[in-house]
């Protein structure tokens, strides 16, 4: 699958290019490094003058303080963590399965009536910001009586046009012969889908898993609008309240620790699965 790219290149990158890109990469990483370092800073180091970038005496006290700050919120920290994890996992699993199921006919049965129209609607919805639909979406969720239920945080996010688009583009690469062969062997569509199609498009659904995980995990707007009670809040939403909003310095250490706790899972996930992403992304182009 993977091509040896370096071998075919005509020009090797020069030392200068390495130097410039390395410096740029380091500058880009500075805020992240600062976030990690601050999470371990004792209070006396936080408000030093002159300000210090890196931590000198690392401590775990901020994390303890985070737990205390969370305790004061009347709902245990574990509940927020559970909410975030449950909502994210449910959204990712359902989203990946449903998008893949819908993408399969679009990719492999181009003559199916309604197929082209459906796909062009999906592509046009790529072209508008999700914020556009927030208000009527709120009204619909409200009408369905789902406000403050897990379903409100999961269902509206599942049917994302990007997921369907990505899976369809990737599935088009599957040779029709493989599907036909499986059918001749007596497999029904359902078996073809799970035993032939899904294994072949593994890089695509792993990629979609990552993007969907990151998107849902970081989502602040959806829980902000669709939850009422404290028990239903997710991590990003709670984080914005413990700091006391922009400009507040109260519990600075706890906030720094919380930032790290929220950010780390997404970075780890990407590092672990990066190679699948790169295999998939080339198919993400739109043909006009």
């Amino acid at each position, binding site marked *: 699958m993977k091509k040896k790219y370096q071998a075919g290149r005509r020009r090797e990158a020069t030392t200068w*290019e390495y130097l410039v890109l390395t410096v740029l990469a380091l500058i*880009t990483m500075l805020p*992240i490094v600062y976030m990690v370092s601050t999470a371990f800073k004792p209070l006396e180091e936080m408000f030093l003058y002159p300000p210090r970038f890196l931590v000198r005496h690392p401590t775990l006290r901020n994390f303890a303080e985070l737990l205390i700050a969370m305790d004061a919120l009347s709902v245990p920290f574990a509940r927020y963590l559970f909410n975030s994890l449950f909502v994210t996992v449910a959204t990712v699993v359902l989203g990946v399965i449903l998008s893949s199921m819908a993408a399969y006919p679009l990719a492999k049965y181009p003559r199916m009536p309604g197929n082209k129209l459906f796909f062009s609607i999906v592509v046009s919805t790529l072209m508008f910001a999700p914020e556009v639909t927030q208000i009527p979406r709120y009204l619909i969720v409200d009408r369905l009586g789902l406000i403050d239920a897990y379903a409100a945080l999961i269902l509206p996010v599942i049917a994302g046009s990007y997921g369907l688009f990505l899976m369809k583009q990737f599935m088009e690469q599957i040779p029709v012969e493989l599907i036909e062969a499986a059918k001749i062997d007596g497999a029904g569509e359902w078996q073809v889908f799970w035993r032939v199609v899904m294994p072949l498009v593994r890089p695509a659904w792993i990629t979609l898993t990552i993007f969907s995980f990151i998107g849902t995990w970081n989502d602040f707007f959806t829980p902000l609008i669709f939850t009422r009670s404290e028990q239903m809040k997710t991590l990003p939403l709670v984080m914005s309240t413990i700091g006391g909003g922009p400009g507040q310095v109260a519990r600075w250490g706890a*906030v720094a620790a919380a*930032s790290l706790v929220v950010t780390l899972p997404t970075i780890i996930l*990407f590092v672990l699965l990066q190679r699948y992403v790169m295999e998939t*992304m080339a198919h993400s182009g*739109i043909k006009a």
Partner: protein
Amino acid sequence: MNGLRSRWQAIRYAWHEYHTMYLFMLPFTLLFVVFVVAPVLTAAYLSFTYFNVLEPPRWIGLSNYRLLFVEDDIFYQHALKNTFIFAIITGPLGYVISFTLAWFINRLRFRQLYTLAFYTPSITSAIAMSVIWLYFFANDRYGLLNYLLMEIGLITEPVAWLREQSTILPVIMIVSLWMSMGTGFLVFLAGLQDVPLELYEAGMVDGVRNALQEVFYITIPVMRPQLLFGAVMAIVNSFAVFGIAAQIAGLPSPLYAGHTIVAHLYDYGFIRFEMGYAAAIAVVLFLLTFFLGRVAMRIFSER
């Protein structure tokens, strides 16, 4: 009559032939219609009404739009203006930087490491990172930027980056650019790896002299689909700027210096509960990004 019957027969034939496939699409389509298509249509309808959630919507024709463009100074002078300045600068700039970085990284060893370094900012949440920005751009001498600028003697007094009207928007732009190496950037990188090597060799034969010519005559034409995808993402994201602005500058921001279209939408929709008016704002944003998306499709279409 005959036409109707043949239409009916076509549907029956399609169902007979493809019913399993329609069932495959059903769950997704159901959710897609309820939570994406219906909201778009509802927004379009509500934008012509007065609707405060408590009473049923009342039809008022084009009043919301008239109000929005003629009388709402905050929308016109701040939300629209800030969003356009932001989008016109950060959109193209982020796009070009993404492509340029991807092009260079593609030629390096340890490509994955460089990719990770530039991509990571885009997956951090605006909420989590706001702590960091509030320190970097803090208004007093304890802020990192103020400290550094005072050390090298560029300024003598600390600048209130997040309170001055003139610096709020630039700070939001810088942070957004930092986060802009996202999906588009990855798509560019992957697309670059997929350009067939023979094309470069053929290009040499055809008289491509340097790297710049190679990029313009070979790489860019081959990568049209990826470039279009990146353009659509850049347009949508830059016109929908809100999260970062709200986290850094607050809502409402000082003198509306960080006010954007989506901030205005949020203000009317979820703080004042004037849903009809907010829907009109949403429709304007939708038309804007849709029109620009179409323009991008025209530019990148294969002629």
